[in-house]
């Protein structure tokens, strides 16, 4: 059989989306003859070619089943898509790198295709042994299982590395766990007969990029993965490993811890500072120098401050207009948080008019919000000012027609999203939930 029919055999073995990928011209397949049953497949990138070339060994293609050919090409495409030629992969030249790469690539190759590769590689190895050693010796070795070859199966490498079964056996996980794997404990051989030199039996020659061609190769690989034809091929490559592991990774984390927004902590601190200004502090006496006392053998414990705490009240204005509907609920844990600090909250809420105006003390039920219409927080702030508070915290998305005038005698803390700058007062930012 010449290369023409062999190439036809290769193309017939490929599913349509992988053939489509070849149409882009960014990947091509070549057949090359090699006497030794090694490097059955490899990928090269030549400078200026702007395409990856998958080189298949003609003798292997001739003997291989369609599944084995498909598996070999899938394997090589995996190397390209996974970028097994980039800087991070070049950093480690130890077998752990190759072992992790091969395991990762084979993760995308269906099991029957890996087994088909096993079969053809074993057969070719045995045929080669007959040629080199003679029929009798080769038969004896075959009976001893010397030509039994086995692919690098990802689950075995994952187990060797101790990777959690919940995680897919990807290079980026396997390599740090295997590194540094001393030479002789792994290798580029996808299949290696027991008792054979690994280097002699590499079925996959890996991926080689000509010196100085890395930028081009990176770009072509990116183009392959980004293009519509590449995406189809990726889809085909990704069909295989979907059954991997428990599958639990596809479901989101189930915890629903009630959320306390980050700004609540800042609000509490602001309220506490505000309240602290009202506290009367007194020191019963000056603190003695401990070092003196210790040195003289006398020790008197420190003197605590006596604090008298009055009732601390903070006015919390919440915009309940329609645009706040998704973010409004964060006000509740924030109010709860303030109440647990022993801070009394004057809770004022509404959209264009005041709908709720209640004084909440620790233990008080928090009323449900009302509103949902247009926005104008000016009436809410006017109401707050009527109570002559020391501080007013205003929680709004700032989708308002105008900023309310500065309330006299009260400090103001604005809790607004990024991109809005109130004309006065302190500002705390929050993240709208839709982001």
């Amino acid at each position, binding site marked *: 059989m010449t290369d023409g029919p062999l190439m036809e055999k290769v193309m017939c073995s490929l599913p349509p989306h992988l053939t489509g990928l070849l149409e882009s011209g960014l990947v091509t397949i070549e057949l090359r003859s090699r006497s030794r049953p090694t490097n059955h497949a490899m990928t090269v990138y030549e400078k200026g070619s702007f395409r990856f070339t998958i080189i298949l060994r003609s003798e292997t293609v001739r003997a291989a089943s369609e599944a084995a050919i498909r598996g070999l090409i899938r394997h090589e495409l995996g190397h390209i898509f996974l970028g097994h030629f980039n800087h991070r992969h070049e950093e480690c030249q130890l077998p752990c790198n190759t072992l992790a790469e091969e395991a990762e690539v084979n993760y995308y190759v269906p099991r029957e295709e890996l087994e088909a590769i096993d079969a053809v590689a074993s057969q070719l190895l045995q045929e080669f042994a007959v040629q080199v050693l003679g029929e009798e010796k080769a038969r004896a070795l075959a009976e001893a299982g010397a030509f039994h070859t086995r692919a690098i199966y990802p689950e075995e490498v994952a187990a060797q590395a101790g990777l*959690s079964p*919940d995680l897919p056996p990807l290079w980026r996980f396997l390599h740090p766990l295997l590194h540094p794997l001393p030479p002789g404990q792994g290798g580029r051989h996808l299949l290696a007969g027991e008792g054979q030199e690994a280097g002699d039996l590499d079925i996959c020659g890996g991926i080689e990029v000509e010196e100085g061609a890395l930028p081009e190769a*990176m770009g072509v690989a990116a183009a392959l993965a*980004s293009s519509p034809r590449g995406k189809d091929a990726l889809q085909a490559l990704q069909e295989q490993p979907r059954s991997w592991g428990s599958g639990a990774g596809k479901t989101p984390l189930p915890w629903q811890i*009630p959320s306390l927004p980050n700004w609540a*902590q800042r609000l509490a*601190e602001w309220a506490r500072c505000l309240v602290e200004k009202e506290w009367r502090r007194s020191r019963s006496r000056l603190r003695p120098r401990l070092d003196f006392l*210790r040195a003289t053998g006398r020790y008197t414990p*420190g003197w605590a401050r006596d604090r008298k705490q009055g009732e601390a009240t903070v006015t919390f204005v919440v915009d309940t207009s329609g645009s706040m509907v998704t973010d409004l609920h964060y006000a509740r844990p924030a109010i709860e948080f303030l109440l647990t600090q022993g801070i009394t909250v004057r809770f004022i809420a509404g959209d264009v008019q005041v709908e709720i105006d209640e004084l909440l003390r620790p233990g008080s039920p928090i009323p449900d919000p009302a509103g949902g219409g247009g926005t104008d927080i000016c009436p809410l702030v006017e109401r707050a000012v009527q109570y002559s508070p020391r501080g007013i915290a205003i929680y709004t998305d700032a989708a308002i027609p105008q900023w309310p005038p500065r309330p006299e005698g009260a400090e103001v803390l604005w809790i607004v999203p990024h991109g809005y700058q109130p004309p006065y007062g302190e500002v705390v930012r929050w993240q709208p939930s839709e982001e």
Partner: protein
Amino acid sequence: MRNDPYPFGEELEKLARAAILFLNEHSTLVPTLWGPSSEGKTQFVRSLAREMGAHFLHVILQGLKPDDALGAQIMTVDARLVTAHSWWFEKAREWVTRGEKVVIFLDELDKVDPEIIASVLTFLRDRTALGVSLEDEDAIREGRAQRLAYLVAACNPGAMDEALRRRLAFIWWPTDIRRYYQLAGGSEIARLAIEANSQQLAQRRQEALPPPSPDFTLASVDVLARGQTKLLRMPREERAFILSLLMPREAAARVIRQLERLALRPEEQLDYLIQNPDHAVEVLARLPVPEFVATGASMVLHAYNSGQVERIPAAFISILKGAVAPALQRRDDPRARAEALERLSAWLQERPDKQELQRVCQEAISRLGPDPFFQEAARDNFVVFHSNGGLPRAEGALVEICRSFASSQEERDD
């Protein structure tokens, strides 16, 4: 809001145990049980110490004065400066020096006296008191020594000093009826009492205030980098729990999902292209039209999604350069001009992803302003804008190509 898929009972204890060990061994963040008093926090930490075969030191920080908390430096009558550490620090050091494990339980951390916050912070961060280290932190960090002193803190829900809060990793420890039954064991009276009070317990759990959402800080990154190997080997639930202590839970969930996602993604390659716009031009110029358009769009979207908005101007201009590259390379060749025009119009035409691209570019302009785009365009004299008093005027390679294409069109029309 308050449904309870949050782990509880033995499950929570198992996860908390894993988190305490992990954080102590791979970080300086202190695992802190956040929950109301009398809910078994101390008992849990004590049993953890027993399981580990470690000594247990219970340090109640409430009301401690500076000298009692960590110790004091004393000037003696003969003018010698003597460092006297607190009892628990001395004890812990003694055990650690002997190679024995110790669990130091810092209780009532929220009630620590403001006067000693600074020294407590130093201890939490460096595990040192008055300049004396409990263990060789460098050796632990480099893997030359094992952690022997484990810190666990506890606090009641409430506001906390901001700096202190950032040194802690909060483990929510709400009221848990299972813990009550576990403690009751076979006692019929105790079980009946729990049943009689079950409504109250359920109410208490409902009202339990969760800890503040953790901030993602450099300390979080440090833990993840140092503990990567262990995280990769531990069961999913433990990994998810630990991640949720190091960052807001939505982000933790996203990380978990990404970890388990398949990896056939061109991110690294796209990263390379957006970081090397000149190489990107070279590659884009050689790609077939569909691949050119798809790669260009992927570059811009990837720059945006990976937080590299400042690279969008260069990526954007490299796409335009890649589009007209045939005409730039073969200026007198009309076919090259036609090819350039075809590529340019393919890039500019309406496509499903165009709206998203437009949004990303608009956001980049609003964040960075138009100047980086103009500066990038002016590089290599691609497009340069002048405004000498009058209307702005464009010059450069792109303008020349457009002019020569227009003139060749006119010639053809004539």
